């Protein structure tokens, strides 16, 4: 299925989206700037927390900042590449989604490539800056494995949040105006993944580890970087498992998407 000509087709679609954005330079610059500011303001919250206390859940400022940075970059990547899938209800209402179905490409592939939010580079860029500064300040005993982990984790985080975006956008196939539900898992997942998980209650912690795998985006990899074990008692190997978690999440999202699509074409109900 993923042959060279298919890749060329998607490539052409994404390039056309990028070209369309580049033609509005002034507004693009403003939006890029607000994305940078968004990260700064979110980060002020972390800063305010550590103005009051020296540690949160046993982690100091630099360590929580590492979590924040990993989460910001991962979420920014997902938001740039697939964040716009929450426009699905709009596409369904205007018939654009039917046009997707009339073309010889996967409907999900077309939905994902229907936009490419370059302005999120602002969020990703400032997330990287926070991450690098935080890593310099945190007490990491660098090994090749940890260096690899730091590079791979934001990508795995992007895949995990991307999977959450895709899985939750299928709400749009079932209810007309319930898209906001998705925010609890996408933006909610991003909010919570910037903090140490041991401050959360058991249910929330388990839900955002095993159902929505937000713990694998930043908290667990940070434990591995710091060489610490989870105060809440998760086994140590999970801290190194962001990549398999991302693959499982992607497969699950694909399955949920197919269920939603079957409902849309009327086979599932």
């Amino acid at each position, binding site marked *: 299925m993923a042959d060279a000509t298919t890749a060329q087709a998607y490539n052409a679609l994404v390039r056309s989206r990028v070209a369309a954005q580049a033609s509005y330079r*002034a507004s693009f610059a403003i939006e890029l700037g607000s994305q940078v500011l968004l990260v700064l303001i979110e980060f002020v919250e972390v800063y305010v927390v550590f103005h009051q206390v020296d540690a949160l859940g046993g982690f100091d400022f630099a360590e929580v900042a590492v979590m924040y940075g990993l989460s910001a970059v991962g979420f920014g990547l997902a938001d740039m590449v697939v964040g716009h899938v929450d426009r699905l209800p709009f596409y369904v209402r205007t018939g654009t989604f039917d046009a997707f179905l009339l073309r010889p490409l996967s409907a999900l592939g077309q939905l994902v490539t229907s936009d490419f939010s370059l302005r999120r580079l602002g969020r990703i860029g400032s997330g990287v800056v926070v991450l690098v500064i935080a890593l310099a300040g945190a007490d990491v005993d660098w090994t090749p494995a940890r260096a690899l982990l730091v590079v791979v984790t934001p990508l795995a985080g992007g895949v995990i949040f991307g999977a959450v975006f895709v899985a939750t956008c299928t709400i749009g196939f079932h209810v007309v105006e*319930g898209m906001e539900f998705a925010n609890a898992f996408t933006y909610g997942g991003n909010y919570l993944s910037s903090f140490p998980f041991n401050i959360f209650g058991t249910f929330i912690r388990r839900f955002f580890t095993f159902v929505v795998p937000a713990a694998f985006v930043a908290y667990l990899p940070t434990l591995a970087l710091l060489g610490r074990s989870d105060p809440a008692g998760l086994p140590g190997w999970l801290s190194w498992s962001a990549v398999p978690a991302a693959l499982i999440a992607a497969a699950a999202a694909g399955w949920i998407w197919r269920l939603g699509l079957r409902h849309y074409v009327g086979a599932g109900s």
Partner: protein
Amino acid sequence: MSVIAVGPAVALAGAGYRRWATYRQAALAGVFVNTVFGVIKLSILLGIADSAGGTVAGYDAASLSTYAWVSQGLIAVVMIFAWTELADRVRTGDIAVDLARPVDLQLSWLAQDIGRAAWALLSRAVVPIVFGAIFFGFYWPTDPTAIILLPVSILLAVCVSFAGRFMVNLTAFWLTEIRGLVLLYVLVAGLLGGHLVPVQLFPDWLQAAAYATPFPAMVQFPINLMTGQATGLRALGEVAVQVAWAVGLLLLGRLVLSRATRKLVVQGG
């Protein structure tokens, strides 16, 4: 200055209420999201209190819970998120129709916004607060002054918030694209208003900056009456500050509107 009569104002508020009351699914989704974010926010705040030895900046666990749930409940009431309805009418030119009506433009939109807030109070504020009160500790206010002032303070918060949003929307008369500006406004208002973290937890310089803006009058002041942070004379004082911001910003908004109208008349939009 033309003034709006009581009869039409009540009718407009009723229309605002009913218009929003048709979106039941969206309200349900919103309540769910606000509640999930409430749990995350409260967990972080309790984590701070825990590290600080039980209380932080005058908040104990119970009043932090009240802060978290009331601030989540008020999101939709005060509408601290993006609102571009008026700007959309400016962009499409429909604003000319509104200006031709025999009612005051600003006050008629305010009346509708109060109706919308009333619906939000019933549909979106009650559930997170009741949920929080049942499943988490909760501080109920005991000071009679604070209790009596609470409804007044919420109404004033809606007025201040409306006055601010009104002016941001009016910039659409001069700017072709206001999405970036609206996003920026929402972020700054949320942070400085004390929606993410109570203003009392800010470092001194940030507190001083926040109190120089109208944003605490939209979010933090009504919450203070619920959490016991403002009682007696301080409660009266904060409500007086709200009155000042509401009147000042509404008057400023009228000035901006008259400039905008002149531009519309002279240049034809």
